[in-house]
């Protein structure tokens, strides 16, 4: 059984664990258990074993490349990895082998991490349940009849089931935090610009951000440390220096002010979820934080603004799938027919729906009413957070999701119901702010509940501190059968 990533790193550092042993333990668990979950789309066993052997030597020589040298990590299948098939959960990219590494992947490898394989996801990261994968859904380790959330559902399920001690995901509207919450692990969406997006298959470029998932806050901090920082290949990556998250993590939370926005504890919130989140807030108060009622008056408009901005950007980003340079191509006599048939055959239903919505929102006569208006509402949402931070709030607390994990098929026929499960996570993406989900309890059915904290731009350190405090008092359980 693989424990928290922090413990794994400590074990490696002491010499109590060897990278190759650790990798074999993960591969054995994956072989034994992943048939039940379908978290992995493919394994990279051969290169992983070679990487682990190299890490064994560095560890034995006490010359590790970083604190995560030799730690097995898995990647959501929207991270390009040179020579490894990368599908983004889509039939249109089936068989695509990228000729280069995403920067986040290259940085993990440079830190000595052992890349174990690629994880399932909603097609093009569009979805909240991983049911939109062209390769079949992933299941939630806490209840196999339920979804792990999404779109990074494979990442969250693999971490929660102890198949790997850490994973990378991406978060455009909650796609790291929501599955982390529904699977009972920690998931961080860093500030927009904190981690390079180079080599990450684009969904909505002004919202997409790369981030880590792990069983523990310390693990998330260690992974962020290795992937954060400016990259000349991503012009939107920030030049701000990356602090030492491990040091910030251990600082006391005494004296921090946590904003409690009334709009995010409103209608649609499950009672059991609310109780667990308020209990976590009470524990933070006992640790010396001040809870302060605030208002984010424009937060209720976030889902509407998000689905216009995200689909508009997606419709233009996904124009590149035309059957010419990579991916699937349909046979046709003319170029136009080739485009239309390729895209009809290659994209799944939700991706087509979002391309249609985005194209409509950008089309002549509708641009001002939909897309431009949504961008203005986005300004208002960001302003709400800025006002809270200006009034002394260090982080904003809320549930991560309004409910615990839902059943497979429960929302798949109702796009709007599925979209509304992102109601608490979307504001941070629109405002470009960092957000973290931390497990804080279970409902009566034994399903995990997560609490979300959203912080100032580039203040991941404070979020990790608060998250560390919040995880201390929580009840620890392991999903049965894992």
């Amino acid at each position: 059984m693989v424990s928290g990533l922090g413990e794994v790193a400590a074990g490696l550092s002491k010499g109590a664990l060897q990278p190759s042993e650790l990798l074999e333990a993960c591969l054995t668990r994956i072989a034994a258990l992943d048939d039940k979950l379908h978290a992995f789309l493919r394994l990279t066993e051969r290169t992983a074993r070679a990487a682990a052997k190299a890490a064994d030597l560095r560890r034995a020589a006490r010359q590790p490349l970083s604190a995560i040298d030799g730690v097995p990590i898995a990647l959501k299948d929207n991270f390009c990895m040179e020579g490894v098939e990368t599908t983004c959960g889509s039939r249109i990219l089936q068989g695509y082998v990228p000729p280069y590494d995403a920067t986040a992947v290259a940085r993990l490898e440079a830190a000595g991490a052992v890349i174990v394989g690629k994880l399932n996801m909603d097609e093009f990261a569009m979805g909240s349940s991983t049911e939109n994968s062209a390769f079949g859904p992933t299941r939630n380790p806490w209840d196999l009849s339920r979804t792990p959330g999404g779109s990074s559902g494979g990442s969250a399920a693999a971490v929660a089931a102890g198949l790997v001690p850490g994973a990378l995901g991406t978060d455009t509207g909650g796609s790291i935090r929501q599955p982390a919450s529904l699977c009972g692990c920690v998931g961080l969406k860093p500030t927009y610009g904190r981690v390079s997006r180079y080599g990450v298959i684009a969904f909505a470029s002004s919202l997409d951000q790369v981030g880590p998932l792990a069983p523990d806050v310390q693990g998330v901090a260690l992974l962020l440390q290795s992937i954060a920082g400016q990259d000349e290949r991503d012009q939107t990556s920030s030049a701000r220096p990356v602090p030492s998250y491990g040091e910030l993590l251990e600082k006391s939370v005494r004296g921090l002010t946590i904003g409690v926005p009334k709009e995010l504890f409103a209608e649609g919130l499950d009672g059991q979820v609310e109780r667990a989140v308020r209990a976590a807030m009470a524990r933070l108060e006992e640790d010396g934080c001040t809870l302060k009622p605030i208002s984010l008056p424009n937060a209720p408009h976030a889902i509407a603004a998000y689905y216009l901005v995200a689909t508009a950007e997606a419709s233009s980003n996904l124009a590149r799938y035309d059957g010419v340079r990579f991916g699937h191509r349909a046979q046709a006599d003319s170029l136009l027919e080739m485009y239309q048939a390729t895209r009809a055959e290659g994209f799944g239903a939700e991706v087509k729906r979002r391309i249609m919505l985005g194209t409509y929102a950008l089309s002549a006569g509708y641009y001002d009413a939909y897309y431009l208006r949504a961008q203005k509402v986005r300004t208002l949402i960001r302003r709400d957070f800025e006002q809270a931070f200006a009034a002394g709030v260090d982080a904003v607390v809320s549930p991560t999701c309004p409910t615990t994990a839902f059943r497979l098929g429960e929302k798949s026929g109702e796009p709007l119901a599925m979209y509304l499960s992102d109601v608490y996570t979307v504001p941070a993406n629109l405002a470009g702010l960092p957000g973290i989900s931390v497990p804080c309890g279970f409902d009566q059915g034994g399903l995990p509940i997560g609490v979300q904290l959203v912080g100032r731009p580039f203040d991941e350190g404070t979020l990790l501190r608060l998250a560390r405090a919040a995880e201390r008092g929580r009840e620890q359980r392991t999903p049965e059968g894992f």
Partner: protein
Amino acid sequence: MAIDRAQVRHVARLARLRLSAAEEELYAAQLGAVLGYLERLAAVDVSSVEPLSFAGDEGSSLREDVARSGLSREQALAAAPQHDAQAFVVPRIIE
């Protein structure tokens, strides 16, 4: 907000998507429902608000304009469904 099949066909053409009759029907209903929900933004007062297109950090930074090597032609062509020794091959567009 109602969307009819003619509008769905128009948008699908703009998006270079071929839809079946059943898909046109389905998307007309589903897009109508989603757009109905999105209508709520019309009630927000956005007069005097600037649009936010990008929630990024302080201004953009550009690297030095120096030539460097990228993908080789072979690498760039390797994933194409159809190519010859030097180019992507597509259906003929000029008769």
